[in-house]
């Protein structure tokens, strides 16, 4: 369980102080697949960085399985439990070959070379990059690098995976395969997934959607419940899934459709 108890975070000091998170109370439960939505500047990335202690709250506390991120001695353990994948893979890849990059984390755990090899092969397969083990990361495309970064996080066998805008650089196939990979990791391996995004079409897969605006959580619930009031979401700059926008237009001109539509397939079925 990842708990944020009354967490606030400020950048800068005094006059220049900017409040990025404002009294956040939030519990991510084991086994959940949660999506955190919010416009640019709403505090999403700041929130993500609190979950594994990359940032320490200005006020309040973040507790992962009973370990506070304020406790320096526990931080190493926290980071092993909570894997992170960021938006820009160029900032995350360090080695000169794909397999060495993935090996970096496990090597630092002092694992047996055979086990490391196993994890490299396994994680590359999960992200569909098994043919690139010996390639140089800087020669890969943005989307391919992102898959390597995800494989690197998975090789640590984290209990929680926090993904910060990791699909925004991928092509549609890449991002839908990434989302189904995340869904699989969640379903088959029991990894808790927190997917931070501004792409509203990604919510349909989630059990739970949290909407962040100006450093506060303003909505928290199942996707269909959160997307029942569109005006409020649009007003804060959160896009609405395209299928839902089309459905709303059709309802406005007199068609009878359910209000819970989030995907094109749901809309097609409702129209037939």
């Amino acid at each position, binding site marked *: 369980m990842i708990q944020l108890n009354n967490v606030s975070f400020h950048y800068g000091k005094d006059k220049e102080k900017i409040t990025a998170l404002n009294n956040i109370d939030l519990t991510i439960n084991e086994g959940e697949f949660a999506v955190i939505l919010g416009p*640019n500047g709403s505090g999403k990335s700041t929130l993500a960085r609190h979950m594994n202690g990359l940032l320490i709250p200005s006020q309040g506390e973040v507790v992962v399985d009973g370990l506070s991120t304020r406790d320096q001695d526990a931080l190493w353990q926290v980071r092993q439990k909570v894997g992170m994948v960021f938006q820009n893979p160029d900032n995350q890849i360090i080695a000169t070959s794909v397999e060495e990059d993935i090996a970096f984390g496990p090597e630092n755990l002092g694992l047996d070379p055979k086990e490391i090899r196993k994890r490299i092969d396994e994680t590359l397969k999960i992200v569909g990059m098994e043919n690139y083990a010996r390639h140089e990361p800087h020669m890969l*495309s943005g989307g391919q690098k992102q898959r390597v970064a995800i494989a690197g996080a998975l090789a640590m066998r984290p209990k929680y995976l926090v993904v910060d*805008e990791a699909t925004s650089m991928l092509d549609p196939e*890449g991002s839908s395969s990434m989302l189904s990979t995340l869904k699989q990791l969640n379903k088959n391996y029991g990894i808790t997934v927190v997917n931070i995004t501004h792409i509203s079409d990604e919510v349909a897969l989630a059990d739970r959607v949290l909407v962040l605006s100006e450093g506060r959580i303003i909505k928290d619930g199942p996707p269909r419940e959160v997307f029942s009031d569109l005006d409020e979401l649009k007003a804060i700059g959160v896009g609405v899934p395209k299928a839902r926008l089309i459905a709303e237009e059709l309802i406005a001109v007199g068609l009878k459709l359910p209000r819970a539509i989030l995907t*094109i397939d749901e809309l097609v079925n409702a129209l037939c």
Partner: protein
Amino acid sequence: MLIEMMNVSFTYMPNTSLEQLALQSINLGIDEGEFIGLIGPTGSGKSTLVQLLSTLLIPTEGKIIFEGQEIGKDIDPRIIRKEVGLVFQFPESQLFAETVADDVAFGPRNLGLSEEEVDLRVRDSLGSVGLAYERYADRSPFSLSGGEKRLVAIAGILAMKPHVLILDEPITGLDYWGRTRVLRCIDELNRNGMTVIIVAHDMDEIAEYVDRVAVLSEGQIVLDGRPKDVFSQIDYLKDIGLDVPKTVELLMKLRDRGFNVTVESLGMQPAISAILAAVKEK
């Protein structure tokens, strides 16, 4: 014809064990004033292609003609770099100056222009991206929103007065407002005569703006035409890892279920009308 790529191929690290053919026999003509969407899955060669167009890379085979002159033979690639403005992915990561005005002025100053001319260009290009000079000039670029930062980066390129503007994934990573603002700005530039090429992997929002779509797959141009014709190849596009705009996907799926719909346009309103007509008919 403004730019013509003739039988262009490009190989990374040729004659090594890591040799990789990124583009193969590309033939592509670009007319003055066109608004082109270049799409393709990751690794299909999109970024390589735009770097060739802006002469950051030189073809391993074939030639590129700019206004009738062959680049590298009849005309110096450095001249082309001024004519073809390239906005990289996440260009805001290249902002560095203390104020917005200084950042936009960096390029023109390096051209050795007078301060008067530099100032004029800064005002013009900030105006072109819809950022009021009085409001933004003295602000730190780092205090702006994601969409505004990207507009400043685009203004920095416009200040070089390019003939052609190429934008690599210009709306990736922006939220709803940011995307709308950047797209409207680019559309406006094109309406005012700029030749624009947008590179994207997701055409959902861009499809309504461009006049032409070229599709890259595994280093080759596999489709090139009007958006509605290109996106009607829904199965083929999905096969190579691309999506079609959601409106097209919906209309196609309805057609498969026996509705009488035609995919004549990509916008929201035409799609709504087509669905309504089909539903009434059924």
